[in-house]
């Protein structure tokens, strides 16, 4: 039988704080290094397109998306962010749909309300040409960065 003591509460509070420490991520350079080294060691064989995927992660564009408006297409003629040739975004009902031209491989999507502040951004991993985000649960202005 365990006996509760106030020190347990302090320790548990501290543990909760440690658990909430913001996540860190590898840089695109490190990702590319790992993949290249794994290939060089012949642990995996590179199919077509892998070099494109790695390069893509190095030319990331921040995609501003205004949620809560009627319809949005943030990527269009005249306002194309870097990388717009391989990504598109539109609103379908309450969902924002991202389409990635080369969507067969995994992509990391960072979401932030600050275009310059992706260090602590929410992160999700996608694989597939399309992925959706529920607009009703997002702030009104969100910047997405797709690696």
């Amino acid at each position, binding site marked *: 039988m365990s006996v509760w003591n106030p020190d347990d509460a302090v320790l548990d509070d501290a543990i909760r704080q*440690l658990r909430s420490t913001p996540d*860190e991520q590898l840089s695109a350079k490190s990702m590319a290094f790992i993949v290249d080294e794994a290939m060089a060691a012949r642990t995996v064989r590179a199919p077509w397109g*892998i070099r494109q995927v790695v390069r893509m992660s190095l030319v990331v564009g921040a995609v501003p998306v205004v949620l809560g408006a009627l319809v949005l297409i943030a990527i269009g003629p005249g306002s194309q962010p870097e990388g717009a040739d391989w990504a598109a975004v539109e609103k379908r009902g309450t969902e924002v749909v991202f389409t990635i031209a080369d969507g067969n491989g995994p992509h990391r999507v960072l979401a932030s309300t600050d275009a310059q502040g992706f260090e602590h951004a929410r992160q999700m991993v996608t694989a597939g040409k399309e992925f959706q985000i529920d607009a009703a649960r997002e702030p009104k202005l969100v910047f997405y960065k797709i690696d």
Partner: protein
Amino acid sequence: MAPPGDETSDEALAGAAKDGDVRALELLILRHESRVLRVLRFLGVARDDREDLAQDVFLKVFRGLSGFRPGFVFEAWLYRVTVNAAFDHRSGEERRTRHLAPLDDEEPAPDRISAQDLTVLRNRLEAALDTLTDRERAVFVLKEIEGLDTAQVARGLGLREVTVRRHLGQARERLKKVLSG
């Protein structure tokens, strides 16, 4: 939203990577990079060294894929490699000693802790991890911070469950003493 890639198990991705699917390999990295970096941090690897060490961890894991047999648990292998890498790294350095800040006499009772105090508390706990033995620290980080269950920790560290429980108890007692001043 459930990212499509999340539907595939680590083991299936590892198997695909072993068979030559580089995209599966990338997905494994994306899925676990934050976890590896976090474990390295709480096992005492300095910020400047974490990214390099994480690269080493993933390369070692991927190079070991060819030796995996059906039934292996990818995550357990990843944790084991990460923990060993952290301790190997630290054993090559002079173990850092941190002086813990003394408790402020005016520190409020736990039920009145402010956000600022919680940050202080977090920093003190992170520093206090240095007072644990390597094994206690690994068990504490995987169980209490990563949220693994006892069986997962045991598998990841190659220990018996009873040993995990013993080290966890010792770690908690030691940390409570440090935090209570």
